[in-house]
């Protein structure tokens, strides 16, 4: 279907002054905002704005498994449903979930599972629903990050949070946190997630073209960015309880921890 404006992007992804098209330095993240408890009906929920990405995550569980044959007698299961709104992308997306969404759902489930104690919940399911309302590159990383926050908000025992970021290569340079344009026009894209309890990589995909040394640089640089995002996650999680504390004590909280 034709559109009046075409989806085009420039060849040069750096400006004259050496900054990226959105004004960032090579290793700079886009602005990130997170909030927990945004969906009152859910057992746990979180909302994230990461550049132009806007994503909701909600957790329900432990609850009965549908269809029943998926239930495991010795442990719980984690099911993740990553979906994009029709209007979240340039060309309207078809409403039914596509192959890409199903694959990303599975990747995120595999990424989050190591931090949960599923063996404590036999015969039940935790269901994580991720809804991308506005997409601008790096949605699987942003989704993983916000999903782990929603799990924590649900009060589900976890070994740690999970944080993800997309590294990449544009115009021959390694950069942190690819935007939508950079993702489409760049040479390589490397989404990566860390589980903080063992500080290991739990999600890793790679598409593109990179020297082996560049891959090393990506992995090293990712660590710095992940740490930065992790701090924002922790603040978002604490904020809810600080607000409750302030409400209860009438605004006089002496808390030097935050």
């Amino acid at each position: 279907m034709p559109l009046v404006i075409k989806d085009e992007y420039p060849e040069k992804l750096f400006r004259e002054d050496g900054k990226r098209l959105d004004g960032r330095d090579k290793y700079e993240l886009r602005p990130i905002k997170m909030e927990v408890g945004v969906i009152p009906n859910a057992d746990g929920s979180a909302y994230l704005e990461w550049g132009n990405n806007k994503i909701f995550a909600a957790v329900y569980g432990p609850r009965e498994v549908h269809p029943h044959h998926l239930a495991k007698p010795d442990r719980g299961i984690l099911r993740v449903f990553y979906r994009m709104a029709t209007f979240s992308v340039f060309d309207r997306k078809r409403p039914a979930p596509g192959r890409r969404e199903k694959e990303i759902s599975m990747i995120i489930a595999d990424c989050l599972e190591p931090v949960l104690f599923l063996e404590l919940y036999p015969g039940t399911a935790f269901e994580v629903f991720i809804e991308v309302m506005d997409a601008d590159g790096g949605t699987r990383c942003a989704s993983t990050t916000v999903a782990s926050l929603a799990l924590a908000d649900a009060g589900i025992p976890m070994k740690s949070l999970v944080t993800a970021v997309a590294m990449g290569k544009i115009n021959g340079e390694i950069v942190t946190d690819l935007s939508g344009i950079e993702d489409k026009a760049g040479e390589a894209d490397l989404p990566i997630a860390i589980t903080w309890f063992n500080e290991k990589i739990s999600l890793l995909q790679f598409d593109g073209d990179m020297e082996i040394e560049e891959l090393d640089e990506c992995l090293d640089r990712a660590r710095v960015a992940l740490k930065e995002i992790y701090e924002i996650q922790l603040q978002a999680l604490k904020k809810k309880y600080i607000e409750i504390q302030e409400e209860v004590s009438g605004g006089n909280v002496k808390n030097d921890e935050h």
Partner: protein
Amino acid sequence: MMNIKRVISTIEKNYLINNLKREKRIDGRGLWDYREWKIKSDVITSAEGSADVSLGETRIITGLKYEVGEPFPDVPDEGVCTIMAELLPLASPLFERGPPDEQSIELARVVDRGIRHADCIQTKKLCIKENEAVYILFVDMYVINYSGNLIDAGGISSLVTLISSHIPEGKFEDGELQWTGRYLTGDMIVKELPIVLTFGKIDGMIFLDPSLPEELICDGRLSIAVTENKVTSIQKSGSATFSVDEIKMLSRKAIDLGAKLRKDLDLWQYKTEY
């Protein structure tokens, strides 16, 4: 987690009904009051118009996308607008995954009919070239939290989305579709503002804007879409029956309450400058 279940206990039901008999609601409202409205417009960067609307704890995010396609042969100079609703499983434990069910189709259709039968969308303005190219608008509603009365929230959400729209203006030159550099904005494609109002009925008592517990125990609902002085669509749902006098009373009430809401919400403030 909120107290959400398919079945409301008898004691809660009786409490609710006894309150209604004294013209009171369990959340402190009067019979003809809405819960609090919160509206934000143009919240989605990728969409050509959008709205984030909360009615109490019910929350719907709606976005608009467009395509250019061929018109229907019987109206060769008019664009098309379709409305869809998704009841996300994220929004309530009562919603299940899968293709749209009856409830979401009803929501989309009732909102659609309210808008379609009023002089709201100026479909002739959505024509690029007669017989060849018109705009096809997609207004897609996503329920983020379900706490009763999706229809009224969806109606306002769709309306604000259309008002906040900014669709690239196209023209045909040498048989090719080109962008004029300008945008069609909400004030150019929207005229009348139809508002859908939903009334619940329990044990013969009628009230506006059912909340979740009220909706779960009510016998039925009547949704009435109104413009400034006309009724444009009606939907009765649930097993309740309404007398002719009740319908006459409610259609007048809908016009009065609709006018008040239109004034209170001042929807034209959400138009965008492009």
